[in-house]
């Protein structure tokens, strides 16, 4: 049936159109309920599917957060353990250094004390007394005489002897006192020595006390991390972010150094391995230069591992000390050889560059200005070539920091992305649902005359108008739990662990 035929069902086209409109509205009115149900079902399917997806993503995010926290705590514990271990090492070193010599100090102290004791005993000697017969003479001298000259002479002689003896006794006493003072003077260095020794012991004790306080502090932190407190997690997270940023910055600087290093040796390497062969899309000489730099980096890594500065390879750290020392010597020697090779390559590079410059000038027809290259750039390049490998060896430290902190940072980034994904899934679900409602409302708007008539008829019959499904308030809560909730996952996981 063509459009023209449709307009010809009555004599009047307007009447035909009106009839068709009425029929169309009637058809739409009768199809209203199934249409509403279909659209709403479809929109709910979309919403529920997407919200279920969002819930699943949120669950994954939760698990990731737990995992991140575990990683963070494990890293924090390891770090705290390392700090405590280092402090204990320092205490052990201090104890070994200070108290190892304690028996010696003790012996010295004993000797000094014995010496002091002897000196003290010596200084305590009784001063020489007057002769025993002095009181007898003194009593004779006190006898009164009757003027007999013989007695007088005798007494005068006794008096003189007595005076002489007195003088001598005083002199002896003074000498004895001076000798004791001299002994006491000799005691002074021993006192000082004793004081110094005791001061040294006190200083050592104080140092150990300080270390013990540091250990206590570290142990407190360790306990907090072990307890898994939120404050510890926050502190560790902030610390990880800072470490990540710093390590990334230092690594960027190291990459800059490696590029300079590469440019120093790429050209002379073409003199050794040829400049026209390729490995894949890269020149063999460039690859060789890169390999040398990578070998240097590896040697640096091994050296740092052997020195127990980094812990990227636990197997190296776990080696016995003898083997580790051998490894230190081997890696350092290889690094030194490679640095020497680089220095030689830098020299060769300077020569080749100079030769090329001369050729370029010749080709350009420029007059040779008696180019005598300055030795300063040559020496500079050689020194740079020698130093850079050693400098690159220290990349191991920021690299370890970067690897350790990137686990936390990447985990946090992934969690954020999952949260964002969940948000967009929910947003799309809601958009889908409300689009369905919008379509239903538009449908009702198109057939409003039929609905209006239905309302009039039902009102006249006293019946309640049934609200279309789109207008029923959506008060039912949507379950946003994933099939495998977090609690369920933990329950499943625990026995496995």
């Amino acid at each position: 049936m063509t459009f023209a035929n449709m307009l010809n069902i009555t004599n009047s086209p307007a009447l035909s159109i009106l009839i068709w409109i009425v029929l169309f509205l009637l058809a739409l009115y009768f199809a209203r309920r199934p249409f509403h149900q279909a659209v709403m079902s479809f929109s709910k399917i979309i919403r529920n599917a997407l919200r279920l997806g969002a819930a699943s993503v949120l669950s994954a995010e939760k698990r990731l957060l737990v995992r991140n926290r575990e990683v963070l705590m494990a890293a924090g514990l390891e770090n705290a353990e390392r700090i405590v271990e280092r402090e204990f090492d320092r205490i052990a070193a201090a104890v070994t250094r200070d108290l190892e010599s304690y028996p010696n100090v003790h012996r010295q102290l004993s000797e000094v004390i014995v010496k002091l004791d002897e000196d003290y005993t010596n200084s305590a000697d009784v001063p020489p007394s007057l002769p025993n017969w002095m009181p007898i003479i003194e009593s004779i001298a006190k006898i009164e005489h009757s003027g007999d000259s013989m007695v007088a002479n005798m007494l005068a002689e006794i008096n003189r002897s007595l005076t002489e003896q007195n003088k001598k006794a005083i002199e002896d006493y003074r000498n004895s006192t001076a000798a004791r003072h001299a002994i006491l003077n000799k005691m002074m260095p021993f006192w000082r020595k004793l004081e110094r020794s005791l001061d040294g012991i006190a200083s050592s004790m104080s140092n150990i006390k300080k270390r013990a306080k540091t250990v206590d502090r570290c142990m407190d932190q360790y306990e907090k991390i072990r307890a898994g407190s939120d404050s510890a997690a926050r502190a560790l997270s902030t610390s990880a972010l800072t470490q990540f940023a710093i390590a990334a910055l230092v690594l960027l600087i190291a990459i800059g150094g490696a590029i300079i290093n590469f440019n120093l040796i790429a050209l002379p390497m073409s003199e050794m391995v040829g400049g026209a062969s390729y490995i894949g899309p890269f020149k063999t000489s460039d690859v060789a230069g890169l390999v040398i730099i990578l070998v240097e980096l590896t040697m640096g890594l091994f050296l740092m591992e052997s020195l127990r500065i980094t812990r990227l390879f636990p197997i190296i750290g776990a080696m016995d000390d003898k083997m580790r020392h051998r490894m230190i010597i081997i890696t350092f020697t290889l690094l030194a050889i490679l640095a020497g090779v680089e220095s030689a390559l830098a020299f060769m590079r300077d020569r080749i560059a100079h030769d090329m410059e001369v050729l370029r000038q010749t080709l350009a027809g420029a007059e040779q200005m008696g180019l005598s290259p300055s030795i300063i750039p040559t020496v500079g390049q050689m020194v740079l070539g020698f130093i850079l490998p050693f400098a690159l060896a220290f990349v191991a430290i920021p690299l370890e920091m970067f690897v350790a902190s990137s686990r936390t940072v990447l985990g946090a980034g992934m969690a954020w992305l999952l949260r964002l994904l969940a948000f967009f899934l929910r947003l799309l679900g809601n958009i889908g649902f409300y689009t369905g409602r919008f379509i239903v409302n538009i449908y009702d708007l198109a057939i409003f005359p039929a609905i209006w008539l239905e309302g009039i008829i039902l009102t006249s019959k006293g019946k309640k108008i049934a609200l279309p499904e789109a207008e029923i308030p959506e008060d039912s809560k949507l379950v946003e739990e994933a099939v495998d909730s977090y609690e369920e996952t933990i329950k499943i996981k625990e026995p496995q662990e």
Partner: protein
Amino acid sequence: MKKLFAIAVVLCLLIAGCTDTKSRSTGVYMLLDTSGTYAVELKKAQKILNYLLGILAPGDTLAVARIDTGSFSEKDIVSKVTFDERPSVANNQKRAFMQQVEAFVTKVKGSPYTDISGGILQAIEYLNEAESGKKYILIFSDLKEELAKGYKRDIPFQLPDYNVIALNVTKLRGDNIDPKEYMARVEDWRAKVEKGGGDWGMVNDLERLDNIFAN
């Protein structure tokens, strides 16, 4: 022992697999027109050659040949070299090459005829043998071909993967009177090259020599 052998074989295969067998070297064959009217332009050709020596890398091939009455001959090759892979040796080769070209330019005598086609055929033969990855034939000429009686050059060129670049295509007296002649001459060569599968280019401004290897 068998395991070790197997590992060694696998390693060798891996290394061989990584090695790129495709040639990345550049081969340049430069034809110098020595006909009477054009011989005076050879100093410019020397500058171009110096430029080429400056930019060609170790492993590249460079040959210079003259265009004379019969150019399809190895005798017309003035100088040829494949640069050593070591830069220092390559530099010495470049110096020697430069001196040979200088000697040629100083002593060259004009030829009565101009066999450009023969020169191109010789260039194709040479560069095919050199197995260069990128092949360039540079024609330093006014492109006016004049063959001696009896010389036949109606052979189509086989120029796939070739870049043929005309350099310093000077205008002849007749071209000034009727530019169509010049255009027809250039067009004729372009058609011949493209029919053979090659790419055609022209650089008249010697300040823009970097356009030679622009592609």
